[in-house]
């Protein structure tokens, strides 16, 4: 089968360093005594915890439920007891904590009841739901919920489904090994995606430095009688970037402003396809993943590791050498330093590299940019990184956006080729997060302004209403007073006693009426407070109300006392 290949511009060819970690087959990592499972492991909303401290959980039991459509469930990776639901250090460059479920494992590894499905007989919507509730997300590292990507665009027919087995990052071999050993599962998973998206063609792209994987996938495709095309693509970083692989295989360029289904193409990682197949055919949610442990270690290789396993236990499997000074999660081009080794393995952890000064030498001092343009030649998105650098560095963010800062995929090619050793990607990340933060601030300021203006308006209105009421009352009084002397000659001495009683009753009635009015007013005023809030804010208020409910109940029991008190004080006054 001859497949015409396209080229993407730019890219670099760093030494691949993949050989050490492909010698051994995938090994299964032991169950650690404790698992720390972060609830937020995918792009989108943070799943809501379903378990509490002390709960016993079974392997595969859902412990976090997707809170909205773009979100994915999280599951207990093995059986055990929940000992905490709290903030724990995340596998994130910031080293900040995130809400996690801590499970003390019991070693029994007892599965929850599993249901297998025949996806062909189910509604597509139901299949997507199953995938969401099985926590299937992009395992290439982006962790975007897969079910969201499995919705074809309404107007554009799906032409190609691209399956990404390129694995262009140096050092990383987890997808390579998965394809070699579990090609059949991957192909079956791809078939599920195919049935959901109904593309005209299915293309499986694998970099040509993995001939074993290509052969294994080809054999699996043939064995299962599918018509998928397994294509070896030239080895050039970042050929495994979704947009680059789509470009190479289909010739389509998906801009940052568009989603790929709008161009009739969709892309999934091979590991994602495999996990989707496990979820549908066996009812096994995503509770483990294959992680490459390599770099400055005694035993480089790939392990299947339970999500939530603390990094230090993972690293111990490979045996880091003495001069190891850092651990990088992800590949050497786009990965980041693990700030804390107690952080757990998550769905995004595809590779952990032990680094040493020899392997990753400290950067040469940053020199001024000489505008040589090497970065522009290397940029796979054909940006002008040196211009972006100039604007990011001087915090001229508006200009940076004009020069398409947000089309940057942070692949690191520009930094790789820079003769001045400028940490370009870092400048771009800085600029991006600064822009996002400013946008947040601006939105908050606008909302605050709107609410302030609304409040002022309300105050004015209430004042006006009050003035009107007073004026009316005064007018009424005046009207009462005027005719009074003429029409009703008073009978002052007629019945003074009952009048006082009446006065007392009237007073009471008036107080009751005032209280009622106040209550009504309060009720009327309250929704005003929550007008025009976002759903998240309403949720927040709902939570506050929930917390308040017991306190309110407490107060419900005391109003009599309060009333008594007011009566007492009234009596005192009398």
């Amino acid at each position: 089968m001859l497949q015409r290949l396209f080229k993407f511009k730019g890219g670099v060819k760093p030494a691949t360093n993949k050989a050490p970690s492909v010698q051994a087959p995938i090994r299964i990592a032991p169950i650690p005594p404790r698992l720390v499972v972060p609830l937020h492991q995918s792009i989108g909303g943070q799943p809501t915890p379903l378990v509490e401290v002390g709960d016993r959980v079974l392997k595969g039991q859902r412990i976090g439920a997707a809170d909205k459509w773009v979100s994915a469930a999280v599951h207990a990776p093995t059986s055990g007891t929940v000992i905490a639901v709290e903030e724990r250090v995340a596998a994130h460059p910031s080293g900040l904590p995130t809400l996690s479920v801590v499970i003390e494992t019991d070693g029994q590894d007892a599965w929850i009841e599993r249901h297998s499905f025949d996806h062909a007989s189910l509604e597509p919507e139901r299949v997507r739901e199953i995938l969401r509730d099985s926590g299937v997300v992009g395992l290439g590292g982006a962790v975007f919920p897969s079910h969201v990507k499995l919705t074809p665009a309404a107007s554009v027919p799906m032409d190609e489904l691209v399956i990404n087995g390129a694995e262009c990052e140096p050092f990383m071999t987890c997808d390579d090994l998965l394809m070699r050993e579990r090609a059949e599962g991957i192909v079956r998973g791809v078939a599920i995606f195919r049935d959901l998206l109904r593309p005209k063609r299915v293309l499986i792209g694998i970099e040509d430095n993995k001939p074993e994987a290509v052969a294994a996938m080809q054999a699996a495709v043939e064995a299962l009688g599918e018509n998928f095309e397994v294509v070896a693509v030239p080895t050039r970083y970042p050929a495994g970037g979704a947009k680059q692989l789509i470009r190479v295989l289909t010739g389509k360029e998906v801009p940052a402003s568009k989603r790929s289904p709008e161009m009739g193409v969709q892309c999934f990682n091979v590991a994602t396809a495999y996990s989707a197949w496990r979820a549908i055919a066996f009812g096994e949610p995503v509770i483990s993943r294959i992680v490459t442990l390599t770099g400055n270690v005694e035993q480089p290789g790939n392990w299947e590791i339970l999500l939530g396993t603390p990094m230090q236990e993972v690293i111990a499997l490979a045996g880091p050498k003495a001069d190891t000074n850092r651990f990088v999660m992800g590949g050497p081009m786009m990965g980041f330093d693990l700030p804390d080794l107690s952080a757990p393995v998550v769905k995004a952890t595809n590779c952990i590299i032990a680094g040493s000064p020899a392997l990753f030498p400290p950067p040469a001092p940053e020199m001024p940019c000489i505008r040589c343009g090497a970065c522009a030649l290397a940029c796979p998105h054909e940006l002008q990184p040196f211009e972006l650098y100039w604007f990011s560095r001087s915090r001229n963010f508006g200009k940076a956006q004009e020069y398409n800062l947000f089309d940057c995929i942070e692949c690191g090619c520009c930094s790789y080729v820079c003769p001045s050793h400028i940490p370009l990607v870092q400048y771009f990340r800085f600029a991006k997060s600064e822009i996002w933060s400013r946008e947040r601030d601006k939105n908050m300021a606008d909302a605050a302004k709107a609410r302030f203006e609304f409040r002022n308006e309300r105050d004015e209105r209430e004042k006006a209403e009050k003035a009107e009421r007073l004026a009316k009352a005064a007018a009424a009084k005046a009207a009462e007073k005027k005719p009074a002397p003429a029409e009703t000659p008073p009978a002052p001495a007629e019945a003074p006693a009952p009048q006082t009683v009446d006065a007392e009753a009237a007073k009471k009635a008036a107080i009751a009426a005032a209280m009622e009015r106040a209550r009504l007013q309060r009720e009327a005023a309250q929704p005003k407070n929550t007008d025009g809030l976002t759903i998240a804010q309403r949720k927040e208020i709902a939570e506050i109300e929930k917390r308040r409910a017991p306190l309110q109940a407490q107060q419900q029991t005391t109003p009599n006392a309060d009333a008594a008190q007011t009566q007492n004080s009234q009596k005192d006054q009398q």
Partner: protein
Amino acid sequence: MLTAILIMALGAIVLGAALGYASIKFKVEGNPLVEKIEAILPQTQCGQCGYPGCKPYAEAIAEGEADINKCPPGGMEGVRKLADLLGREVKPLDAEEKPKQLAIIDEQLCIGCTLCIQACPVDAIVGAAKQMHTVVESLCTGCELCVKPCPVECIRMEPIAEKIDNWKWKYPVFEIKPARRAA
């Protein structure tokens, strides 16, 4: 001589008429500068500038009555932006720059007096009389206006903690600096 005077007078009349016409035809409602200034201000409505809200302060700046360094929540960056917009000199902030804060009501202590609700300029406090009040975090601008009115001092300000959601990549730190030898 007379012709010269006449020509000058005629010129003055024509130009004056043109100006007068333009001022009616192209009249701008409101002061566009005020809006631009207000867009820079953080809209906390805190009144720390001495004006009752961001808009009055913006108006005062536009009138030239107020200095541009009176807005602590805007920080030095705000001062810089205002200086840029108005072509004025950048001045150090007239107060201490604080990190962004959030009001927190101690729900155990709150007596439900509603004083803070009345003080809050952005309706970020919910609750009713005799009921515990709570700050809606995502609406709070950190203006501190609710702190003083509270009769039982149950409101405190806390700096907004860094979370993964609002964490920012840092500015690259390795600039070339002369290696100074220790004496």
